[in-house]
């Protein structure tokens, strides 16, 4: 689904990522790990075209990102669900409006997605919070709402950036469970986290590969650490 070849990225001066080669195949589950500031978010941003590679190629859904127009990028983002590190909600809209926003902006009839919306709200257990504003949600609620929004258009790929960053261990385990469930439904999942315990926790439940960013390069290993 997503393929990086000799990809590199720098914000200007020093390189953040260099010579990255990886293929995120359909239906795979990847953890992306590395210390804080190592470039996990940067890697994910290359995957959903918030950043363009400074070197090498990035192919998403079969297309070279350099050849994409802004409209092409918009179309790709409708097929990739992203759980952003800081959630990225529209603060003046309710949880329900935020979760349905991808459906709204893609010009679909929002009513067609209401069944999906109801199921998602049950699944992430936020049904009784749908009228709350983002500022009124707890950390765990925000993360689950962000996950629900990432899934509203039933994307093939889910990229989650520190989805358990602001929540306690129990909630973290619960969110991980949801992501594993999605992978079992055939979706390609990438979870960026610096939390090793979370990765160990998942090991028994899903055959995940671990990508580790170290000294600006990406090391690929099996499920073992």
């Amino acid at each position, binding site marked *: 689904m997503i393929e990086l070849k000799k990809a590199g990225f720098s914000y200007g001066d020093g390189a953040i990522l260099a010579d990255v080669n990886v293929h995120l195949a359909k239906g795979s589950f990847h953890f992306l790990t590395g210390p804080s500031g190592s470039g996990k978010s940067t890697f994910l941003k290359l995957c959903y075209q918030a950043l363009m590679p400074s070197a090498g190629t990035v192919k998403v859904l079969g297309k070279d990102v350099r050849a994409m127009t802004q409209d092409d990028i918009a179309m790709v983002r409708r097929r990739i669900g992203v759980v952003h590190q800081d959630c990225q909600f529209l603060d003046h809209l309710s949880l329900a409006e935020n979760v349905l926003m991808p459906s709204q902006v893609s010009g679909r009839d*929002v009513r067609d997605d209401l069944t999906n919306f109801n199921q998602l709200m049950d699944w992430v257990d936020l049904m009784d919070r749908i009228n709350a504003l983002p500022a009124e949600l707890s950390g765990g609620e925000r993360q689950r709402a962000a996950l629900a929004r990432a899934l509203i258009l039933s994307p093939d790929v889910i990229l989650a950036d520190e989805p358990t960053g602001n929540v306690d261990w129990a909630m973290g385990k619960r969110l991980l469970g949801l992501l594993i469930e999605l992978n079992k439904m055939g979706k390609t999942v990438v979870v960026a986290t610096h939390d090793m315990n979370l990765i160990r926790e998942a090991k028994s439940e899903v055959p995940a590969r671990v990508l580790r960013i170290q000294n600006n390069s990406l090391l690929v290993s099996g499920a073992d650490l």
Partner: protein
Amino acid sequence: MNKLKIAWARAQDLLSGDQSADRVVPPSGYTSSLTSFVAGAMAFLSVFALALSLATGRLAERWSNELANTSTVRISAPEGQAAEQAKIALEILKVTPGISSARLMTQEEQRRLLAPWFGDQLPMENLPIPSLIEILEDSQGPDVQGLKLRLAAEVPGAVLDDHTRWRRPFVTAASRLRLLGLISIVLIFVSMAAMITLAAQSALSANDQVIKVLRLIGAKNSYIVKAFVRRFTIRALLGSTFGTLFAMLFILFLPRVAEEGAFLTGLGFRGWHWILPMFVPFLAALIAFVATRIAAKHTLQGPS
């Protein structure tokens, strides 16, 4: 025809359509109320400028019509000579180029002319009232100086009174005023376009976080442009509707004075001209639509 249909569908889409699209842009306090206010004030001013143009246009037309035709020759002569002198004067006038007809006014007509001052019971027979000859000029008009000299030589009691000629500079002035009104209307709408562009740009930069989020969840630029354009078009339409209505009511209740006398108090709309100011809100909305669209497209051109 097809293009027209598409344009119409777009307009409907813009004005009715789904409420939620409108909520995407947060209700950003001052830029949108600024837009309403500017649109309202500009609409108000443009309605007045329009009224001024129309009123001065009417005045210029009326005055130049009056100028076009009449002047008079007044003959004050001792009793007994008046009739003779009038006859000579008439003969001179008939052969003068630039005059299409000349006619001695009857006593009855003169009485009517004097009635405002002396009442209609005036015993004309016993008064030394001068005889009046009414002259209708053709489009060229006579050589006034030459005619005056000739009359002085041959009809000692005759005075040529070209009483409307003094108004000629006023006709020019009135036409200039109309032009001024039209230029004002153009300037008003250009200023409105500029101010709405600035307001739209400031709203776009104030909402860069919203725009970023919309892009992250797969919004195309056209969607974002539409959300902003909608907001500003509706604001401009509402504001200018209020401004226009207010100006029209104001003009409707201006004290009425005969238009011939004082041209500023003749400010107003006559008959079907009342329809013209009603186009102002639509023009304002169209300007807001175009200005916001250009501003938004320009701002969003950068990388996502």
